[in-house]
């Protein structure tokens, strides 16, 4: 059992499991007749049809202290959203207990609680009421809400005409102006424009200094790293790691690259070496990703020039070995691969018992996302490896705010319209 039932904890989640029923939500008529007594007895989740159920969360335990910022990361289907739904009381755990001490404001889905036909103004009042505010409270904050969302001009427009960014701005603005003690934020902020994202982060940071407890669920590891005190890594409904943002992000990459290897197992070695045996004879001691100043980095800007330093201990003498460096995406796709053999550079003679360090200079023209960096040292005749390391350093490339994908192809838009002559419609004969 939980021994550290901390008194400062605003959120306590104890051994929580959540089971969902798979398939259509409704029962067929015959099922219904059997299910009704169980449904009313509250045992509908303990039915005999085990294979029709799925555990979204299994035995999850954690605490969040007052003023703390907890990040929750994990691959799709890991149970992140389920945790938020449980914390916000939208649904109840199948087993275990949840305590939340304090007023919650949840920003789980974009525009949830907005009615498309009503204007922005009407929706502010409606949404505020849904979050438990009185009309008087909302009236007092109304101007602040609208100003923060920058929607002064559109506040009397029906929200069905809003863009997704406008939805996100209004939703976030209402949520933070309800003076919550606990704020739950899902992926929603990724919709807004970059300027609004920055402002909302600043706002959240400022509120955290004033004692707000924040639970932040995101795929955006950069934001998680920047905002969170502590991060939980979820995988398949279980907490696989709790720690500092860096620890959790590394764990995330490890989990992801594990998946990548099984997905792309055959693709990994198309570099000419048939025999995959690592013969030994050298050991890569460290791989470091550093910037111009020599500072180690995990977060880089698109297009940033970095150095990758391999430090290797040679146990035997090696003549002109082939050294390589490569980058993969989080799901294993090869982004870049380079070695001295292709570059027609010879590496020379390495003496056994000595440690050598060499550096690759790379310009990371990559787009936002998680990448893993690796390298290897192969025998000169490509008959095997001295050593190989798949996922030595994981790093995250920040967003350019302009494009998505892997490669930063520096797209430009040239608006020189060529207005052609409009062809008259010719009736078809026959």
């Amino acid at each position, binding site marked *: 059992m939980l021994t550290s039932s901390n008194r400062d904890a605003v959120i306590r989640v104890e051994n929580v499991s959540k089971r969902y029923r798979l398939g259509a939500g409704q029962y067929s008529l015959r099922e*219904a007749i059997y299910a009704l007594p169980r449904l009313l007895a509250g045992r509908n989740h303990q039915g005999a049809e085990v294979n029709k159920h799925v555990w979204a969360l299994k035995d999850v335990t954690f605490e969040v202290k007052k003023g703390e910022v907890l990040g929750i990361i994990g691959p799709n289907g890991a149970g992140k959203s389920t945790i938020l739904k449980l914390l916000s009381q939208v649904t109840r755990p199948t087993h275990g207990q949840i305590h939340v001490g304090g007023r919650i404001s*949840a920003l789980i889905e974009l525009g949830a609680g907005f009615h498309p036909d009503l204007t922005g103004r009407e929706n502010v009042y409606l949404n505020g009421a849904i979050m438990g505010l009185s009309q008087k409270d909302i009236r007092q904050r109304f101007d602040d809400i609208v100003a923060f969302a920058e929607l002064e001009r559109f506040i009397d427009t029906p929200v069905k005409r809003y863009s997704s960014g406008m939805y996100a701005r209004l939703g976030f603005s209402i949520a933070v102006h309800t003076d919550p003690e606990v704020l739950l934020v899902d992926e929603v902020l990724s919709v807004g424009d970059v300027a609004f994202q920055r402002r909302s982060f600043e706002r959240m940071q400022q509120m955290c200094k004033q004692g707000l407890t924040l639970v932040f669920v995101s795929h955006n590891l950069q934001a998680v790293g920047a905002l969170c005190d502590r991060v939980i890594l979820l995988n398949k409904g279980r907490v696989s790691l709790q720690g500092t943002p860096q620890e959790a992000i590394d764990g995330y990459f490890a989990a992801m690259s594990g998946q990548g290897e099984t997905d792309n197992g055959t693709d990994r070695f198309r570099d000419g070496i048939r025999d995959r045996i690592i013969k030994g004879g050298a050991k890569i001691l460290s791989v470091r990703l550093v910037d111009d100043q020599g500072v180690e980095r995990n977060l880089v800007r698109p297009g940033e020039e970095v150095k990758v330093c391999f430090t290797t201990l040679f146990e035997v003498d090696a003549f002109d070995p082939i050294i390589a460096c490569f980058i993969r995406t989080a799901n294993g796709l090869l982004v870049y691969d380079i070695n001295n053999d292709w570059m027609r550079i010879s590496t020379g003679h390495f003496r056994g018992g000595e440690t050598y360090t060499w550096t690759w200079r790379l310009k990371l023209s990559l787009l936002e996302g998680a990448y893993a960096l690796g390298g290897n040292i192969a025998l000169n005749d490509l008959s095997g490896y001295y050593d190989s390391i798949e996922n030595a350093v994981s790093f995250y490339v920040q967003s350019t705010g302009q494009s998505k994908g892997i490669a930063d192809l520096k797209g430009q838009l040239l608006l020189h319209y060529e207005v052609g002559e409009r062809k008259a419609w010719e009736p078809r004969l026959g």
Partner: protein
Amino acid sequence: MTVLENLRELYDYRELLWMWTLRSIKARYKQSLLGLAWAIFQPLSLTIAYVLVFSHVMRFPSDGIPYPIFAYSAVLPWSFFARSVSSGIPSVVHNMNLVTKIYFPRAVFPLSAIAASFVDFLSGVGVFIGLMVYYRVPINPAMGLLPMLFLIQLLLTAGVSLGASALNVFYRDINNMIPLLLQLWMYACPIIYPVSLVPAWLQSWYMLNPMAGIVHSYRQIILKAQLPDWPTVGMAGVISLLIFAGGYLIFRKLEDSFADII
């Protein structure tokens, strides 16, 4: 959550109940030509049809009361009940996008459906007062009992709406059955005919239907200036209370799993 805590929570969300009611009314009449006039038009046109069919063609008796006001006095409370229930039962399912994303007491949906129908009911009451003036129905002291009767009707309406709206999340057939069931239920109430037409041996069974007792008592009080039959009112009261308790408990039991139905 105890019952008391649950009721306090509902009370805390009274502004949401109010706003949600306004929203339903606005949404209902926003794009209709006649707007709120529909609320009057619907029971009134029903009454006119009943007058034509049952009074002039079928020549139903009406205990010596002019048939139009005889019928309207029952159509009015019945329409309130029927509208509340038929808009309340699908209300949770219609708002699943909210139910699965935000927490607030889910009872807001069926309860605000009742409140929105109450607005229609009030405008119908205006028409009824006009009819009373026209047919020179005097005010009488027994009318002091009307709020009690109305409370019984509210309990019944809330019970049916709560219970059925929760079950409808799991068994959507319920929503399809409503029009038929309401039609049958209406024939089981003294709306187009007087209770005196019901055979004596059937009367005690007949009054097990709380709506029958309620409608009958409205008529007795308003149109005949009589005190209601206390056994009839008592029976309607007890059964309505039981239905309310049952509906409330079903709703409480099921509302936690609403969001799990995807």
